[in-house]
């Protein structure tokens, strides 16, 4: 049974996702040990402009040049800077067909693995594992479960998920793909606001549909919640492969920040510009291929 970690990255005019994905791969390789390969799915343009770095951190690269329609989102770098840029996130639904592995762990390029708990996913009895619960490291969001809308279904986070090649997973990704191509209809059906296609929403809807539109529980990852640092937070210092100090936006006054230290726990850092500012540290603490 082959086991692979897959990270998606396509650069846009705002961010070098390839760098970020390389840092993320380095952390995964440093802290996990039971996988066979770490694979990047990217497009030709991104590969050509970052080939050396990518080859240092990834065992395998898969090129997917499928057309990505305009999907413009707001990127925040704390409260100081806001930018709109294209968000090339529509390839995620193809991962079932693209993955060469029997078992796949997909992680976002801004998800930093800082312990070995995700080693436990391999050889799971579950066809799919994904988290519904989350914790805001700044405690500004009090909820443990978020809905697509207050009247809608619970949101599953496509930030990290596991699947094995199976009928259930294949059906799931077929539905996700269908939702992707018809997402405005599904946004209407599920009371979602906005025009930004989100993988979190598509995964949540697909899981809901696949489970017969009844209330259900999908098996979670070994730790059943995500540690989310939202994009109003910033990074203070990257200490090591399992130690990051964050500026967490104060719950009452988001322009103020509280220093918080995260050790031996995975962290989803949504402020991508902050990752960019510390990219050299992230890359140096991570592990390269054949190191």
């Amino acid at each position, binding site marked *: 049974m082959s086991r692979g970690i897959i990270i998606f990255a396509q650069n846009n005019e705002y961010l070098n996702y390839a760098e970020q994905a390389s840092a993320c791969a380095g952390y995964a390789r440093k802290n996990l040990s039971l996988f066979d390969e770490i694979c990047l799915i990217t497009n030709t343009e991104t590969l050509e402009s970052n080939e050396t770095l990518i080859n240092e951190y990834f065992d395998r690269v898969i090129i997917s040049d499928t057309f990505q329609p305009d999907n413009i989102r707001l990127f925040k770098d704390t409260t100081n800077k806001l930018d709109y840029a294209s968000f090339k996130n529509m390839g995620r639904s193809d991962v079932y067909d693209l993955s060469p592995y029997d078992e796949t762990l997909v992680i976002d390029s801004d998800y930093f693995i800082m312990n070995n708990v995700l080693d436990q996913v391999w050889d799971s009895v579950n066809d799919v594992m994904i988290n519904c619960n989350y914790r805001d490291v700044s405690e500004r969001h009090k909820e443990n479960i978020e809905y697509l809308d*207050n*009247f*809608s*279904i*619970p949101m599953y986070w496509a930030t990290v998920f596991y699947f094995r090649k199976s009928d259930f997973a294949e059906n799931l990704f077929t539905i996700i793909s269908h939702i992707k191509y018809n997402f405005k209809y599904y946004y209407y*059906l*599920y*009371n979602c606001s906005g025009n930004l296609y989100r993988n979190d929403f598509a995964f949540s809807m697909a899981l*809901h549909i696949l489970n*017969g*539109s*009844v*209330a259900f529980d999908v098996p979670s990852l070994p730790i059943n919640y995500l540690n989310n640092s939202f994009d109003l937070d910033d990074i203070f210092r990257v200490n090591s492969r399992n130690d990051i100090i964050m500026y967490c936006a104060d719950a009452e006054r988001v322009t103020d920040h509280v220093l918080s230290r995260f050790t031996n726990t995975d962290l989803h850092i949504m402020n991508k510009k902050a990752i960019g500012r510390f990219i050299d540290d992230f890359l140096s603490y991570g592990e390269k291929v054949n190191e």
Partner: protein
Amino acid sequence: MSKGYITIAQNSEDIDYLEMSYALALSLKASQENSNLCVCVDEETRKLITDKHIQAFDAIVDIPWNDDAKGNKWKINNKWKYPHMTPYDETIILDSDMIFTDSVDHWWDYLAKKDVWCCTNVKTFRNEDVTSDYYRKKFTQLNLPNIYSNFTYFKKSELTFEFFKMVELIMVHWNVYFDKFLSGVGQNWMSADVAYALAIQLLDIEAETCDYDIKDVPTFVHMKSMVQNIPENQIDSNWTKSITSELGDDLQVKIGNFTQTLPVHYVEKNWMDSSKIKQLEDAVL
């Protein structure tokens, strides 16, 4: 051992409880192997019974010993009479504004472990456990057993009659019991839930009649607006104005994006309309 459901249908000026009971009976027939429904009526409601009701109801029983709810808009005062009205050995009390979609037949064997089993956990339309005490401040303040009377199982037993005797005393002498045991925050009007809860507390039979560890049997979806885990300022006090719902051709009830698999207490009486009843009739009769 005979088994069946029981409900009281006393029409008021503006609410047709008999018609809702009829819809309930049809939904039971469509979804349950054991679909017996005994409907208890007062003199006036009895006059409205037609062949279709006789066909749908397993039994029609006159409410005995006068109508304690006479003149009241909210007719709950006869809810201590169930063990005297039921024709069954084992009975589950329901409200008429409920509908069943999937079988809960397997619950009966489980519920039979107790003489009286009160529902202590209800669900939102998303099947989440209701944790809000928005409508239950008195329960919280007085630490009353958190029971929902409209899914109460009982078999004929000494404990059952003792319990309903206590409910009778509370309901008949509500003012006395309210002043002595219930005054303070929250509601001051009588509800079956509070009366049942106080009876359990006074008789000290909570352990015998409730099981808080078991969240899924017995239970139902309770459609009071403010317990749906939706911000209070975003949902109308009448949930049907805020959340879409339908009875599908397959008789599945869909509320929001969720197909309901548990009994649904729809609360808003106009939710059950003639078109839904026609759907149920077409499927069952």
